[in-house]
């Protein structure tokens, strides 16, 4: 139970609610855990800190789930933040490989693993 005056829990639901303006939803955004995100613009002064962090860590391509790990925020929250950045065209999303069975993808994975 949260009481008035109790320490703000960094990962607690109230904070997450504030970060996303009350929105939720991984499914609505169309993002996959392994959708690769790349920044299109550098962070700007006055941005929400979480948006700024995403733009910074995505200077090179980074999956949604890696962003979640680096920012220590649940994937559901990161997805909402990414939806903002996508709408503003500040990031680019590179969708995962198409659904299986795709023999070319399978062969590429086998080849890649053999070369490890």
């Amino acid at each position: 139970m949260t009481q008035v005056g109790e320490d703000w829990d960094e990962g607690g639901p109230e904070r997450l609610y504030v970060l996303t303006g009350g929105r939720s939803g991984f499914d609505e955004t169309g993002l996959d855990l392994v959708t690769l995100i790349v920044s299109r613009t550098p962070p700007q002064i006055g941005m929400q800190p979480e948006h700024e962090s995403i733009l910074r860590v995505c200077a090179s391509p980074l999956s949604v789930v890696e962003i979640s790990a680096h920012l220590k925020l649940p994937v559901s929250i990161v997805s909402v933040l990414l939806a903002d950045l996508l709408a503003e065209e500040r990031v680019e999303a590179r969708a995962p490989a198409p659904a299986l069975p795709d023999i070319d993808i399978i062969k590429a994975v086998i080849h890649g693993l053999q070369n490890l």
Partner: protein
Amino acid sequence: MASRTFETAAGPRSEDALPASATSAVKIVIVGGFGVGKTTLVRSVSEIRPLTTEETMTEASAGVDDLAGVERKSMTTVAMDFGRISLNDELVLYLFGTPGQQRFWFLWNGLFEGALGAVVLVDTRRLEASFDVLGRLEESQTPFVVAVNAFDEAPSYTDGELREALDLTDEVPLMACDARNRESSKGVLLALMQYLHSLAMTSEAT
């Protein structure tokens, strides 16, 4: 009190950055009971130190599992570890370790959609920990292989005994592995991919 600021949120190390040419990613799920070696397997083949993403379980869990008896609605944080392998300049493979017990299936939202397939990691001391997940994978028609992680003190069974105990059909590849060993873990992933290859060839032929 924690005072994490987002200005200092750690990003990937520069040597861990993917090339700008990385265009698409695929995923394989490593699933099994607690302590079976999922993260060990991920770590042994991953090019990055395994990362952790956390989700919060807010559902009231009383009566479902070990959380039974907890009076108030509990907030449980469940971690999922994952690693990464760059297969070539464009294609990246992500490996996710996730608990197989039914009460953690909420973690699977978005995890199995589009996944290439799964590795079910088994500890012969706790075969029953794999029952839930095997049934679920069969139901969802996710292709999988079964790898028995070799623990020194674990009882050893013949393949036939294991197949019977786990109710595996002959088609499902079954192998022993040492999750700590890179080549062994790589072998498990390759076995899964070769199985997928044979399934794809069969479906193309029909």
